[in-house]
């Protein structure tokens, strides 16, 4: 190729690089500033005041209960979505048809409805049951409603891709009962989808704010609700350090989702647009 024909390509590349770097900087500078604020002794005096871990320690002292509660809630949500979602996905893949599609749509509805509206509906319907309303179970129900479609769709996509109906017929022909087929054939072959769904559910549950903010009581505060609290009432350094703690929890999960997503065959990924397209923006939008 002659130098003359190279140069326009080089120019295009340089421009693309510039735009990319500017956009990246636009997004990264606030994040960097926020992280720095969490380590700065006094943010208004700037870095000259020195770096410190005191704010992080303070956050762990003040808010460790919300961190623990968020983790417990996420694991509880995961357990329920596994128990409900995997068999449901199996049932829907086994009997495709109008009913199956309808059920799938209804289950997916909570993702489209604003969390606040969903929470309000739960409070109107079940708020009268005082014990239930006050217990962590109330928030758990909300989180399950919101995360179940992600588990369901992720598992359904994998089951459809491996043609689980025929595999199951094969197992049945060898004498396996429905329960044996589920545990010997369906679950092991859905492992990829179950893992992807599980990461999604935990991430979404830990980051969920809208719904949780409406449902929480002073005794059932999650990390994002605590964040909103600290932003409103604490000094900036503590709020920033708190954000930092949240990042430390959520980023490894996001990385795991990404790594796992790369391992999945393209076909499977294409069949789960919710996972790829909706997930991350939702999490970003959740941060108060």
């Amino acid at each position, binding site marked *: 190729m002659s130098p003359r024909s190279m140069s326009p390509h080089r120019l295009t590349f340089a421009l693309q690089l510039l735009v990319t770097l500017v956009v990246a900087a636009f997004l990264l500078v606030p994040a960097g500033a926020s992280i720095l604020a969490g380590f700065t002794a006094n943010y208004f005096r700037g870095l000259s005041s020195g770096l410190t871990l005191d704010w992080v320690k303070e956050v762990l002292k003040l808010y460790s209960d919300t961190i623990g509660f968020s983790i417990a809630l996420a694991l509880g949500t995961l357990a329920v979505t596994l128990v409900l979602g995997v068999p449901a996905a199996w049932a829907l893949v086994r009997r495709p048809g109008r009913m199956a599609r309808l059920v799938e749509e209804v289950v997916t509805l909570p993702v489209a409805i604003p969390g606040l509206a969903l929470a309000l509906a739960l409070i109107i319907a079940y708020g009268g049951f005082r014990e239930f309303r006050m217990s962590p179970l109330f928030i758990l129900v909300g989180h399950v409603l919101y995360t179940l479609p992600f588990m369901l769709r992720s598992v359904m996509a994998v089951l459809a891709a491996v043609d689980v109906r025929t*595999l199951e017929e094969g*197992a*049945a022909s060898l*004498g396996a*009962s429905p329960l044996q087929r589920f545990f010997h054939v369906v679950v092991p072959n859905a492992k990829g989808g179950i893992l992807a769904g599980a990461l999604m559910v935990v991430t979404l549950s830990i980051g969920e704010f809208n719904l949780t903010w409406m449902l929480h009581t002073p005794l059932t505060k999650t990390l994002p609700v605590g964040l909103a609290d600290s932003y409103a009432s604490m000094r900036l350094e503590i709020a920033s350090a708190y954000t930092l703690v949240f990042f430390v929890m959520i980023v490894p999960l996001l990385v795991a989702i990404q790594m796992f997503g790369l391992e999945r065959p393209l076909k499977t990924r294409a069949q789960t647009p919710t996972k790829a397209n909706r997930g991350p923006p939702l999490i970003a939008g959740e941060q108060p």
Partner: protein
Amino acid sequence: MTLTATGAAITLSGCGKTFADGTRALEPLDLSIPAGETLVLLGPSGCGKTTLLRIIAGLESPDAGGHIAFDGADVTTLPIEKRNVGMVFQSYALFPNMSVIDNVAYGLRVRGVAKAERLRQAHAVLEMMRIDTLAERRITQLSGGQRQRVALARALAVRPRVILLDEPLTALDAALREHLRAEIDSLLRRLAITAIYVTHDQAEALALGDRIVVMRQGAIAQVGTPREVYFQPQNDFVATFVGITNRLAGSLKAGHFASAAGSLPFAGADKAEATLLFRPEAASLCAPEETGLVFQVEQVQFQGARQRVVLAGADGTRVVVEAPAEQLVAAGAAMGLRLDPSRLSLV
């Protein structure tokens, strides 16, 4: 090793199938399959052969009124896992989460056979199929032909009373298909197991079947031995679907079949409109004066050991015959056609 002592005799009565959307997949039919027989269900796609196999397997239930019995015992309401059948699927349905040996031993595992014993038996089946070296492989590491053998081994490992094969060779290339066909044939005969084999390939059906059920649009078109189906097709559909068939339109009168190309003696009651069916190999070429049927040679295809000759009758009817390679046949010449009376059928 002996895998099975006795196959089951299968009786179907009034088994039809209408799907939920109202599609009639199978007209109610009766069929009786003696123990140990290899029965081939042959027909084009959508003829109901797979539905019939799935009803026998227990993967579908027949419409009300249909009954299936194995050795006289009604199994209509039994699901597949209680029927003790072996099944080989078109896509093989091997479990990707298990190794070859675990796949083959799976049927014994769900039957509660102890691990050491079920592995011993599974290895024995793999040995019989001469694929014991594949035992520890993952399913994804196998070629198509190997998968096919593993699927067959897995189905046989539970010593089923009946083995059901749903187009087991369709996914393979032609040379391998022929090889495995011979292997399956000798295996089924050795085991004396009742086998039902679904295929759309007439060569497979003719080679494997003790009897063939030719199906069309959800109904049985003909049941018979391969020879009967091939040489005495009972209707036009069977004649067309199984092999190349020549047809001569004409009439039957006073013990003679008469057509535009001439006439030949043919016993039977008078019929104003009749079609004579015959295979290329049931005919031979001779000098025009030696026979009543005369055609003009349109095309000669040399095929090595033989030659295929396309003939045209006076009314334009084309027939295809096979002639020995050394016989002198020239395009454009008039030739007589001699037909083997035992290999003709009239519809």
